């Protein structure tokens, strides 16, 4: 039972015989009669003494469950490591476990968000999905990682940005979602990349200037001519390979790619909002999650972005968030407006 009225008040209400409180007394007695269910939630508690006061500080701990699909395409697979258990020796299992932990701690430290669902929910992942399966995805409930085909991809759990990207999709979904098609889909992808890079930067203690801004570094085999799948600082430059071709991401609206493939180019045109975020973060400097990330996160979770939002709508929403949080003429608000103009989404002022 989750109760907002404390039990001692319920007991006093239940005991009253005041006629005008009869309905409340009955409701209180019914509430007290409801069986209570205890929902334990893992947490870290720090106790300290300051003067005469005992100070209790708590932060939630993750609840991770890693499963092994054993090269089949059946989910969830067999549980192989749960919260608190030691490393298994299986690289993919342990990388997924660690990556989920890093992402959980980032979400809490940066945004006071307890897990993907903001309610301390279990983080579930499946590794070794399929035979030579060269993908990682979010299925609406869990992250799923293939082992790669050995020709293009080595595997996916090696990169924290990939793990955090998939969890980012979960945060988007729990925040109301963005339709996975066209510009709203590209925003969905871009926000997942923002979570991906910020989680890595947070784990490495990097500032915006120190970060690589690469998504998926290290997942290509040595045969591929490329450093990563995407570059948020320089979209379109992550790889240039004789078989895969050149990274097709645009960094400006004038190069927006109209295509029916990839759900309308959601992984291609995400380069535009990715570049906008990079511009905001580097203009403000310091730790990117503290101001640029905060503006993006509050925009995503603020309830003002519709599920079919286009780039212009999201730009206006981030500008409004920055102005509301920091002031209309603040450094943050100016950086946001300038960035969206720089990538061609707005023509001078995203509030227009």
């Amino acid at each position: 039972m989750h109760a907002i009225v404390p039990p001692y008040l319920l007991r006093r209400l239940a005991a009253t015989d005041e006629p005008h409180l009869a309905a409340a007394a009955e409701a209180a007695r019914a509430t007290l009669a409801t069986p209570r269910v205890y929902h334990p939630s893992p947490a870290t508690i720090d106790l300290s003494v300051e003067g005469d006061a005992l100070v209790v500080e708590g932060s939630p701990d993750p609840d991770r469950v890693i499963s092994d699909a054993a090269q089949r395409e059946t989910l969830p697979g067999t549980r192989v490591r749960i919260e608190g258990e030691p490393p298994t020796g299986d690289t993919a299992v342990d990388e997924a476990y660690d990556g989920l932990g890093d992402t959980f701690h980032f979400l809490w430290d940066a945004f006071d968000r307890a897990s993907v669902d903001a309610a301390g929910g279990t983080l579930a992942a499946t590794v070794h999905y399929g035979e030579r399966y060269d993908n990682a995805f979010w299925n609406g409930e869990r992250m799923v990682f293939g082992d790669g085909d050995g020709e293009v991809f080595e595997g996916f759990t090696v990169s924290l940005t990939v793990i955090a990207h998939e969890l980012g999709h979960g945060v988007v979904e729990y925040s109301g979602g963005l339709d996975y098609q066209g510009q709203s889909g590209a925003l969905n992808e871009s926000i997942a990349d923002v979570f991906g890079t910020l989680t890595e930067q947070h784990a490495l203690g990097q500032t915006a200037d120190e970060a690589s801004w690469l998504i998926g570094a290290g997942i290509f085999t040595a045969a591929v001519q490329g450093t990563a799948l995407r570059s948020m600082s320089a979209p379109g430059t992550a790889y240039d390979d004789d078989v895969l071709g050149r990274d097709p991401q645009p960094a400006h609206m004038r190069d927006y790619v109209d295509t029916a493939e990839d759900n309308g180019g959601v992984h291609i045109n995400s380069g535009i909002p990715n570049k906008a975020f990079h511009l905001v973060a580097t203009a403000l400097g310091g730790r990117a999650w503290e101001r640029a990330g905060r503006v993006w996160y509050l925009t995503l979770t603020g309830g003002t972005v519709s599920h079919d939002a286009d780039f212009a709508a999201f730009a206006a929403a981030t500008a409004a968030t920055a102005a509301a949080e920091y002031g209309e003429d603040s450094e943050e608000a100016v950086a946001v407006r300038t960035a969206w103009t720089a990538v061609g989404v707005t023509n001078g002022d995203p509030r227009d």
Partner: protein
Amino acid sequence: MTHETEPEQAEATEATVVVTVVRSGGFAGLTRRWGVQAPPADAARWRTLVDDCPWHDYDDACADQRADDASRGADRFSWTLHAMLPDATLRADLTETQATGPWRALIDAVREVSGAAANASS
């Protein structure tokens, strides 16, 4: 790296069955293409693989599935299949969860042949 058989290469006029498979999306957003042109001696096997797929039913039967797939999850693959037969040209656009059963059998067969051809030529 090995090279896949591009669909554009699979257009010999004497071929009786030509199948191309395009996979887009996924976390990487990479589009990859495989193709096969069946020589007359092997056409019957490929014709069976093609005929096993519900080309004419999938639109109605799977519309709800496609909508459901689009509403949850991210980074899944999308598949587009083309089959050119002497008497018909067929196309199907499938989500990853739809690409099962006979669809998956056809996809895997095309990819296997494309890979074998690429390895033989590399």
